[in-house]
């Protein structure tokens, strides 16, 4: 049964109402009600395969919900057409991945400018805002191809790309999964600081229990899993 949100979805940075998703093969995800306030940082925890990445994909509009609504910045993504949802994602959602997913062959500046271009910025805006975002994250070699940068610098470029569009929500999918504890702490600090500076809500997924202390609110995704199957 779908529960009504406790407040109007428009007042939250993110609001999921009665969301269900079916993977097939006997596995489903059901999020009756989940709200994230503007500027709030939350951790989605759970074991590998519990559906954390799927939930992020639903929030980002990369997967389509079976039922329910996903509200971001006062807009119900499930009501948007595919192209409008893509455009909305470019403007209001910043994403950070475990594998960073930077475009090889492109410079740090171009990787950030690309996100800004797809968010609808003019070439002049792209250049200025990319430079600002990279400077804030301490990247000086902006013209260097990303594959020539150290992993730490690449992470900063990925964070700069996510925050440069001034998103309402930043989604970070297992950003520390392949890092040692020290680098994991540094990365989480970096992402949280960037999100705080951007004024964006931050949703981080991780199976690492040691990160729980860094977040005021932790949501266990395993509670949303209808049935654990092959995934």
């Amino acid at each position, binding site marked *: 049964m779908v529960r009504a949100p406790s407040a109007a979805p428009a007042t939250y940075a993110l609001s999921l109402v009665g969301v269900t998703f079916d993977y097939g093969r006997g596995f489903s995800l059901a999020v009756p009600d989940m709200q994230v306030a503007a500027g709030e940082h939350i951790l989605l925890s759970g074991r590998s395969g519990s559906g954390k990445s799927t939930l992020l994909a639903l929030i980002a509009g990369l997967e389509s919900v079976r039922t329910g609504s996903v509200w971001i910045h006062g807009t119900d993504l499930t009501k948007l057409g*595919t192209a409008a949802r893509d455009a909305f994602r*470019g403007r209001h959602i910043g994403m950070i991945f475990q594998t960073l*997913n930077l475009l090889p*062959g492109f410079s740090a500046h171009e990787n950030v400018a*690309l996100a800004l271009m797809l968010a609808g910025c003019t070439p002049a805006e792209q250049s200025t805002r990319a430079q600002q975002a990279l400077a804030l994250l301490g990247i000086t070699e902006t013209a260097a191809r990303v594959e020539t940068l150290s992993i730490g610098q690449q992470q900063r470029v990925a964070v700069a790309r996510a925050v440069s569009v001034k998103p309402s929500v930043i989604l970070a999918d297992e950003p520390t999964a392949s890092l040692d504890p020290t680098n994991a702490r540094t990365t989480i600090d970096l992402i949280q600081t960037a999100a705080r500076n951007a004024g964006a809500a931050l949703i981080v997924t991780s199976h690492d229990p040691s990160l729980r202390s860094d977040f005021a609110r932790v949501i266990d995704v395993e509670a949303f899993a209808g049935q654990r199957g092959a995934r």
Partner: protein
Amino acid sequence: MSDLLLVWRSLRARQLSTSMTMAMVTVSVALLLVLLSLREAAADAFRRGTGNVHLLVSADASPLVAVLNGMFYANAPSNPISWAKFKEIDGSFPWAWAIPTQLGDSYRGSPVMACEARFLTDFEPVAGEPFRLAQGVGFKGDFEVVVGSQAAREHGLSLADAIVMNHGASGQSLADHEHAEHPYTVVGILEPTGSAHDRALFTSLQSTWIIHAEERREQTTDEPAHADEAHDHEHDHAHVDADDLTDSEKLITGILLRLPTRPGSDASASLSVQLDRLRRDTSITVAQPAQQIGRLMAIVGDIDWLFVALALVVLLSSALSIMLAMVASMDLRRRQVAILRVLGASAWRVFMLAVTESTLIGVLGALGGVALALIGCEFASSLLADRIGVRVGAGIDWRSALLVTAGATLLAACAGVVPAIQSYRTAVARHLRPIA
């Protein structure tokens, strides 16, 4: 950052396959353009050389060979025509003009046409465009020569130069030898006509007859002496004057004929009648040069359409190779597509990026092909001029270039549709995950 830069970087990321597929487009477009341009230019150039001649009489094996030898200097005609035959034909009809010619000698590989002086005034190498002298005058006396523009340029000839002709068309055969005892004086240099005549030299029939008569008479008197081992070839040459020439020594290899026409018209109502009449004489071959060139073009035309068809197949296969190269790189492309999608690019936009990428290969390849075709036409033009004396325009037909470029671009764009559909259908979330 722009979509075009994005596409350009994507192409650069696969430099080798991009350059290979682009090279295929370049070669096929160049091939197609060179063939299309040359087939028209060559036909025009061939039509130019026959000028205002209505009929050509020779003793060659066929009318086409007669035209190629007599008007394009392909080879020296092998059989002569007697002076008596010329007089007979000349007197058989009130021709506008009848010009006897003789081919067989050469100067450093350039053909020498012995003819009457009116060849340079009455005969027009291109209808309506008579010969014009760039320097000097036409030949009047014996052993004077007028040089075609290309021959003058190739051999560095200028007025008053003394040159020695070779017996034989090529000057390279064992039977060939120099007519050293009779040097010719260059008295005129012609302006370019854009025809095979540019690479020829023109002199009087009488000069050639005198030289060959002297040689023939020397051979007759030398023959017993050749058996004598003491003979050292240093002997007095026989001297022949024009008045000494017998009719049997006045040999020619061709007769150019023009029938009377109405002012402003090149056609003659009695042409077919005269052609039929002359053809009844089995000792000669009569050709209608314009018709023979038309026949030649029809034969060559069928062959070059085959080449054009082959070039089209190459163009199609290059489009196919664009598609295969892009599909082969799909694993790399899917991740890139997923990143673009997550950053806000719509499925249609990534579809168009793939089509733009293949289109760009087509455009750049086609532009390269146009450049290569310009070089190819230049090369083919000089080759045709050197080998058969036919000057064709070195440029390409820009309408064809535009059409072929547009066609290649369209084919390349179509080739991008399959990888574009694959990009469109890319499952974004799945391709953003770490590779297992």
